[in-house]
């Protein structure tokens, strides 16, 4: 008996094909079928944001989207943030510099949330940045250094674009 379905998608520029039960959500599919364990699962009900990934450029909760719904999609996860030569994404570099992570469990989801923010509104001010981050829970840092890192990275990204 095989009640699994085929899912084909691109993740971080690579094509993946896998099979899963229809009920498998995208975060579990990425983690357990594709072995991309950088995306984390914190609540499985869409509140904590740890599982946030980009699907066709938009930040989504990997626990609230079925893997089947991502069939044919372009997915980006934390593993795809750094450049091929290992150079950190400006957000990653800013997070390390500002001590914006402690246990690091919520970090991948926060980074992916911010990739979208930096793409859409790189000139976000602190209040807007806090609003944009309000859908991600972090129990360690108290958020302060996350906001600081996000603003630093936004500045870096804008600078690059402006140049």
């Amino acid at each position, binding site marked *: 008996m095989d009640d699994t379905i085929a899912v084909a998608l691109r993740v971080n520029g690579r094509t993946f094909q896998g099979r899963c039960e229809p009920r498998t959500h995208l975060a579990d599919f990425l983690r357990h079928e594709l072995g991309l364990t950088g995306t984390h699962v914190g609540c499985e009900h869409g509140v904590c944001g740890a599982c946030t990934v980009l699907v066709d450029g938009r930040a989504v909760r990997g626990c609230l989207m079925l893997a089947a719904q991502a069939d044919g999609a372009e997915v980006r996860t934390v593993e795809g943030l750094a450049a091929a030569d290992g150079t950190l994404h400006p957000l990653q570099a800013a997070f390390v510099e500002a001590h914006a992570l402690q*246990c690091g469990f919520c970090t991948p989801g926060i980074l992916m949330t911010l990739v979208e923010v930096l793409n859409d509104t790189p000139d976000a001010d602190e209040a807007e940045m806090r609003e944009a981050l309000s859908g991600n829970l972090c129990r*360690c840092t*108290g*958020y302060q250094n996350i906001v600081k890192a996000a603003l630093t990275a936004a500045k870096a990204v804008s600078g690059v674009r402006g140049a």
Partner: protein
Amino acid sequence: MPDAKPEAMIGRSVRRLEDPALIRGQGRFLDDLSLPGQTHAAFLRSPVAHGRIRRIDTETARTLPGVRAVLTLADLRPVLTADRLPLQFRSATLPTGITPFVLNEGEVVYVGETIALVVADSRAIAEDAAALIDLDIEELDPVADCRDALDEAGPRVYAGRADNVFSRFRQAYGDADAGFAAAAHRLSLSLKQHRGGAHPIEGRGVVASFDRFADQLTVWSSTQLAHEARGFLVELLGRDENGVRVVTPDVGGGFGAKYLFYPEEIAVAAASLLTGLPIKWVEDRREHFLAAIQERDQYWDFEAAVDADGRLLAVRGRMVSDAGAYVPQGINLAYNASTAFPGPYVLPAYDLDVFVTATNKVPTIPVRGAGYPEGTFAMERLLDAIARELGLDRAEVRRRNLVPGEAMPYRTPMASRSGSAILYDSGDFPAIFAQALERIDYAGFEARRAAAAEEGRTLGIGIACGIKGTGRGPYESGLVRIGKSGRVSVYTGAMPMGQGLKTALAQITADQLGVAPDQITVICGDTGTIPLGLGGFASRQTVTAGSSVHQAAAVVRRKVLTVASELLEAPEGDLELVNGEVRVKGTDRAITLKAVAEVVSGVPGYALPKGAEPGLEGQDPFLPTGLTYGMAAHAVEAEVDTGTGNVKLLRYVVVNDCGRAINPMLVEGQIVGGVVHGIGNALFEWMGYDDRAQPITTTLAEYLLPTCTEIPPIEVHLVEYPSPLNPLGVKGVGEAGTVPAAAAIISAVEDALREPGIRLGEVPLSPHRLYQIMRDCGRSA
């Protein structure tokens, strides 16, 4: 203390060694582990708070395709030495029969209690099968509230118990009666404090795998106590230390919830031993709400005697603490709260009657702060009440009662649970408090308040002080080794859960061995690498593990110098350890640590250099003689929307004595995170139960953690009064930020509403609840 050389790593905000992997998504958390042939577990849990199991029928569940086993206590018994877990903190004073069962087959006593374990090819199938177990339970009356637990006519948490009191003790010293006889003023307070759960973003989790070839059971657990966990496994499975290894992967936050060995851990391990299958269980959020420990309710009812100047004379009263249905660890939570009450203040006489009561809810043990926030809240509400009663400024009342700087070190009349005196080892409390007032411009607040009032805004300012006993003993292990590869490795039983402990230990080691921190490997919480350890609790690890590692590294340094002196033919006093080499000062003569390590690893048949021992390894455990106390003063400005009850925090100032800061960036990170946990306790986090003790907040949409938009700018000012009690002079900071936070915030809200005389004595204070209180006082807009 080591010399503070310019190149010293201690004291510098070194970037974390943990980050390069974590930031790339290459962390190794429990659920990232995948073993060949791995199966998955799900638990059948009690749906009722109190009931008697009549029948557990697993037949249908077993037939579901993909199910490997459905196990009850009867099935696990052949590999278990006991049905119940041992008490973690062994104590002769507690009654027997109060610890959790591995799996319950009889009288269940809280919603979420483990009853059966399903092992299947996927978690989803395991959950499907758990739902197919036919469970027949006769529901019994539960005890849903810890005050009702004291009602002799009410139900018992377990059938057959004489009462619902696990423990009753008095925290008492001085002559309280004399204090009341001499009092110029008497006040009484009644406080209701609720603290919710720990809620690390990563829940608990365990993988167990039995290797018949090695005759070893390996258990990976997302825990704060690897070595303690091994101890439980050894005891409950009847194996010796060679047959059980516990390995802790990266831990995604703990906050107390993981400083316990749980039924799920032993059940999964026993099931793996029984079936031979590698088994993984990962806690989901709902399970964290149901079955991970919480801190929950304390009720303080007390009266205070004060003199005409507002100085404390005596306090006496009663505190009732909700222990939940079992005592898995001890009564340390209530004990801490009772000893935390005097805080940084002089309290001449104290008599608190403490009831640790049973309810039909998941057990409580310390969450970040560990009872200190509750004791602190009680004292700080009292000090605000004294100010009001006597018409004094709140800061002045605190100044009059703080332990004076010249009284330090200050020996309180109380004892810690180890029996040693509670002694505040260093610091200047009035100076720390004064700095907090200055940093927030307390003197200028009235003008800010008036200006805001002009705009129709209601502002208040809150102040609170707290202290936290840190660095709890009896020891933490630390072993330093330079291998033949030249790599410096540090091993410890201490358990990082996000603090950056590996970085701090590497900095400490670096200063002894002249090696950059990022050239040092730190391995924590693997019982295969170091035999002993106690783990992460009580803001202890930089104090205990830091000091042990510091001393161990010094041992290795001495060994290196002995050998290098022979090899370089230079006196030890002429040598220095720099950049991975031993150098003769002022010359280019040097030998690498790698070369030294190679020499002392020996060549078959040839002698070691004179004075050398085999290998470059050191251990010199630090044994703390008492807790070290860092004082924190918090000040916060808040705006209250009198139309909705919403509280907005505007600015938050912390002045915190951290002793000697190993890495100020990490210290500040710990304090900010701790403050935000306290903000959650003050305003948001409420773990609700209905009157049948059924949990009613079981998602993060119902139980609110603070998010980014509720957090004001938090300014942390570190002051360093080195502790005389450890070789590094450090004090713990993991919980410091949480301790006075709720007290400061509620003080600010009450201050904002001061005119109509609203008295606030409860946390959390949700907008809804504050609105009710304001409405009852005729204050709401």
